[in-house]
């Protein structure tokens, strides 16, 4: 099962419609978390926004996550050891307020387990790959340093 999420603030019809088409063509089972009233799926299953625990359960069940380029999904993918495909939202298409998602995608494109796609074709090609690897973040020293600095700042 493929699990697709696009964050809580704005709908992302370009990604959702691409997934709907792909599900129809490939028969892949795709579950999409969406609160967009304008999205009328033909082939994907939609679920409403889920509570933290239910969301985690769905992530655990999936074989790959497809998402907008959000930091939260990267951390979720790493926590549960899932491959992650990200499609950055574009400001010029009204998908977000600025292009920080494109910057995020560029910065983390080389993290093992993360694949960045920009088009529906690239998304389909990646979803057809059988052996996507899970996201792994070598994060501890930079995170520990920031934690120590925040501790000091709070005193």
């Amino acid at each position, binding site marked *: 099962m493929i699990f697709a999420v696009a964050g*809580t603030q704005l709908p992302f019809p370009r990604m959702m419609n691409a997934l709907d088409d792909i599900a129809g063509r490939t028969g892949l089972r795709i579950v999409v978390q969406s609160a967009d009233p304008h999205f009328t799926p033909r082939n994907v299953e939609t679920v409403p926004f889920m509570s*933290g625990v239910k969301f985690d359960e769905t992530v655990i069940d999936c074989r790959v996550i497809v998402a907008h380029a959000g*930091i939260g999904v990267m951390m979720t993918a790493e926590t549960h050891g899932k491959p992650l495909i990200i499609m950055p939202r574009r400001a010029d298409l009204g998908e977000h307020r600025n292009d920080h*998602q494109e910057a995020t995608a560029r910065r983390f494109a080389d993290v093992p387990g993360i694949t960045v796609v920009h088009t529906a074709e690239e998304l389909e090609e990646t979803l057809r790959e059988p052996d996507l690897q899970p996201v792994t973040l070598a994060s501890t020293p930079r995170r520990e340093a*920031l*934690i120590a*600095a925040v501790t000091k700042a709070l005193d």
Partner: protein
Amino acid sequence: MCVSSSGGHWQELMALAPAWQDRKPVYACTQPDAGLPFGITELHPIPDCNRNTLAKFLRAIPAYVRLFRAIRPSAVVSTGALPGLVFILLAKLTGARSVWIESIANCERLSMCGYVASHFADVFFVQAAELADGKRILYTGSVI
């Protein structure tokens, strides 16, 4: 008091939680059940808003003020976004310590809320070295 919006902002706040584990953190988030996957049972839900929802923002401010006054925090830490900024400003007004951590997602320029927070928060961290100025805007690490 630890405040953030849902999604990535909250994930980053949780990643930094060891920084205040010896204090008595009180959590507030725009998503009411955000604490459950992290074993946090007490979390104050706060209304969500962003720069495109001015009416929601104006209606939310009294709720933020009410919660702030009820908690009377000695310190406020936030990873953003707009609701977090209000709590940082309230901390500044009352002499509580205020710490802002700009999201790791912002590596090319500060968010609008971050820009405002950088002028008020006692300590302001960015998570990308390119954004630091070594004086008011500090880089010491990042959650990823």
